[in-house]
């Protein structure tokens, strides 16, 4: 299997490998990560074919492109040696092909004269075809990786360009250009990455139980999935302004977002509900040998409402209702102005509910990708909610100052993989309520930082834009000069 070089973006580092591995699974190809470092934008992988490389890369958000690796080394002497040793059989294929040869220096800069010297040092490749800076038939690139402020690169690669990434999608789905959003909408980049990690793909059915203005379902539909969602707040689904059905102008709603992106055919619709009283079918998680279980979802993606600002609430009353109150609810609930009562909802209980629902509704190998805020505190960082029917696949972290948010991704185990003993233990714990007691301290710590978290969450968009700008500054562009 040949080696390929992936030119990653140098941001959201901990999401990058999870995304690539997920996309290999979507493409149904075996991937071996040969070389990967959090502080490097260059990652080498082993893949069965060029078509496999293309299939993975065209969907990747956190990369720029993939190249067939022709050589690598810690200095130019090593690189030339490696190119001559490993890829000489490939040179003649491009002997007369119109081509381009460029340099990509990460955290470094080369003068045009230096670039020319470097590119000329590869003249032994004997490319005699015409040089084409625009639309060449084949494109080669030297990659230089510098340590911060270093004068010489520490890692070098030569690659033949194979495919560009799917990163342009984040421009198409940019929130600034989206028809209908809210203050809590996740930026397009991370929404698309989440959909990739959850294995959204043609033929699949995805659901978001806290959809808000539909960010995750929209991202999942971009990758071909059929989607639906729900929210406890009907206004976020129905949107604002007039009625689109009655032809009134100014209507902004989730359905309008799908129309904007041309994926309305993949949008099943949305409904108003809360997870503790979900109207969705909840088949028994274990088939107990009765044939099919009745599961129907391929993926669940969500960013549950942890915040203090929105308040964490589910339907139900704070205390048991008296007879009179019950009667009032019973008499009034059909009136258009009726507002169902809501009660505070424990954070831990909500996580357990999400996992339990996923265990029930996901088909085998289906995925749950769930965002969760975390304090940068040792005890809390280790906390990962568990369910005997689910296996954690990846934990990706987006760090802020005092808080981080993590994307936890689980795989629904096949029935034959489930540990019966664990199921029994989990059931007993649940009945005794042990879990909730043990976690009281954890919960208190957890909630203390929420104000901070909320503020940071709002700032996340801004800081990301800054990061993009910074990367642009660090990379003085990919220098292109003629051989």
């Amino acid at each position, binding site marked *: 299997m040949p080696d390929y070089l992936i030119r990653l973006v140098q941001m959201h580092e901990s999401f990058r490998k999870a995304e690539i591995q997920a996309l290999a699974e979507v493409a149904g190809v075996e991937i071996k990560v040969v070389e990967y470092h959090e502080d490097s934008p260059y990652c080498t992988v082993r893949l069965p074919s060029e078509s496999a490389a293309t299939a993975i890369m065209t969907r990747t958000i956190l990369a720029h492109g993939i190249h067939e690796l022709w050589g690598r080394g810690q200095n130019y002497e090593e690189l030339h040696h490696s190119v001559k040793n490993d890829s000489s059989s490939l040179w003649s294929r491009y002997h007369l092909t119109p081509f381009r040869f460029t340099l990509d220096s990460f955290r470094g800069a080369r003068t045009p004269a230096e670039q020319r010297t470097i590119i000329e040092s590869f003249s032994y490749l004997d490319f005699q075809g015409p040089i084409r800076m625009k639309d060449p038939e084949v494109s080669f690139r030297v990659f230089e990786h510098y340590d911060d402020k270093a004068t010489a690169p520490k890692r070098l690669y030569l690659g033949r360009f194979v495919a560009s990434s799917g990163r342009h999608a984040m421009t198409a789905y940019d929130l600034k250009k989206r028809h209908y959003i809210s203050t809590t909408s996740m930026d397009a980049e991370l929404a698309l990455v989440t959909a990739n990690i959850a294995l959204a793909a043609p*033929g699949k059915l995805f659901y978001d139980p806290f959809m808000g203005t539909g960010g995750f379902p929209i991202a999942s539909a971009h990758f071909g999935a059929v989607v639906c969602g729900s929210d406890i707040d009907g206004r976020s689904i*129905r949107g604002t302004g007039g009625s689109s059905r009655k032809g009134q102008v100014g209507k902004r709603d989730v*359905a309008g977002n799908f129309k904007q992106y041309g994926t309305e055919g993949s949008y099943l619709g949305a*409904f108003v509900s809360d997870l503790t009283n979900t109207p969705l079918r909840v088949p028994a998680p274990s088939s107990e040998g009765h044939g099919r279980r009745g599961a129907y979802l391929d993926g669940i993606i969500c960013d549950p409402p942890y915040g203090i600002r929105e308040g964490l609430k589910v339907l*139900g009353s704070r205390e048991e209702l008296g007879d009179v109150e019950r009667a009032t609810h019973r008499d009034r609930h059909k009136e258009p102005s009726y507002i169902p009562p809501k009660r505070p909802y424990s954070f831990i209980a909500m996580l357990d509910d999400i996992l339990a629902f996923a265990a029930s509704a996901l088909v085998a190998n289906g995925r749950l990708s769930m965002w969760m805020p975390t304090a940068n505190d040792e005890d809390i960082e280790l906390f990962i909610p568990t369910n005997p029917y689910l296996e954690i696949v990846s934990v990706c972290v987006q760090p802020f100052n005092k808080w981080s948010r993590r994307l936890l991704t689980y795989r629904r185990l096949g029935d034959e993989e489930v540990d019966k003993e664990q199921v029994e233990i989990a059931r007993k714990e649940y009945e005794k309520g042990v879990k909730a007691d043990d976690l009281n301290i954890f919960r208190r710590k957890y909630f203390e930082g929420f104000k901070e978290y909320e503020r940071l969450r709002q700032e996340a968009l801004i800081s990301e834009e800054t990061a993009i700008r910074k990367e642009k500054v660090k990379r003085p562009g990919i220098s292109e000069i003629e051989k």
Partner: protein
Amino acid sequence: MKLLTLNFLTCAIKSCKTSPASFPLHPRDAELEIVEADVNLAFLQNILPRLMWAELRTIASELGLPTLPEDIPEREALVEGRGEGEGEGEGGEQIPSQTAKDLHRVLLETCIQEGKLVCGNCGHEYAVKEGVANFLLPGHLV
């Protein structure tokens, strides 16, 4: 909401869920709309084995839609053949059969815009307005 959604929805009241009568929910005073979309063959192939077929037939008949066959179609029945493609094996695009088109019409083009969804067990009515069903329960039912 597209009609396929009704194959996943049941009564939101917990004590109802165990009763077979709570699924499917029965549409009442439903105002339907056909919203055309491209046939998504890969999706039909994937979702077909997960459908609750008898319940789908019930709903189709309650809504006065063309009668669906008694038995769930085989997965193979969704494909008519392959288009003109290069090479062997994989060849061109798969062509959806009439069975696939009919299913597509019912599941993914037929939408409930207004009306009610009624639980066959407890009789609770969930309103659908502008294509969005509301499953929030009143206080005395939570």
